[in-house]
C-alpha cells in the first residue's frame, strides 16, 4: 500500500510539473491563474497522500493552509483584474 501511495504522489507531482508548463505558455492571465489553482489543488492532494504514507499528521494541516492560500491568491487576482477593468470602463465612458 505504501508503494502504491508513493507512486500516486509521484504521478500527481508530475501533473503539477505539467501545470507549470501550462503557466509558462497560457495565452492569458486568467489561464495562468487557473493553472495556479490546479497546482494548489494538486499540492493539497499530494500533501494528503504524503501525510498518510509517512505517517505525519501535520501534513494534513499544511494541506488545509494551502487550500486557504490558493483561494486567497485567486481572489486577489480577480479583485485586481476587476478594479483595473472598472478603471478602464470609467476612462472610456469619460472619453465618450
Amino acid at each position: 500500500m505504501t508503494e502504491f501511495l508513493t507512486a500516486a504522489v509521484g504521478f500527481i507531482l508530475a501533473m503539477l510539473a505539467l501545470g507549470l508548463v501550462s503557466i509558462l505558455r497560457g495565452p492569458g492571465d486568467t489561464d495562468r491563474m487557473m493553472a495556479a489553482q490546479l497546482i494548489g489543488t494538486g499540492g493539497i492532494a499530494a500533501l494528503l497522500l504524503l501525510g498518510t504514507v509517512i505517517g505525519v499528521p501535520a501534513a494534513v494541516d499544511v494541506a488545509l493552509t494551502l487550500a486557504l492560500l490558493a483561494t486567497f491568491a485567486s481572489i486577489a487576482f480577480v479583485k485586481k483584474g476587476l478594479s483595473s477593468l472598472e478603471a478602464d470602463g470609467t476612462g472610456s465612458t469619460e472619453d465618450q
Partner: protein
Amino acid sequence: MSIARDIITIAAVSAGAFFFLAGTVGLLRFPDTLTRLHALTKADNLGLGLVVLGLLPQAASLRDGLKLVSIWLLGLLAGATVSQLIARTARQGEPAK
C-alpha cells in the same frame, strides 16, 4: 477487511489521479478559456474528492477522517467561488480584446 480497505484506496486514488491527468491535459489542450475552466473544475472537485475518498479507509481515527472530508469541502467551496469569479473576469475581458 484490510484487503477490502486497500482495494477501495487503490481504486479511488487511481481514479483521482486520472482526473488530475485529465485536468492538466485539458488545461494544456483545450482551445479557449471557458473550456479550460471546465477541465480545471473536474480536476479540482473530482480529483481531490476521489483522493480524499481513497485515503479515508487508511485514516487512523474518526477525527482524521473528518479532517480529510472537511479539507475536501473547503476545496469544493473555494473551487466553486473561484471558478465563478474567474469566469466573470474572462467574460468581461473578452469584449475588450
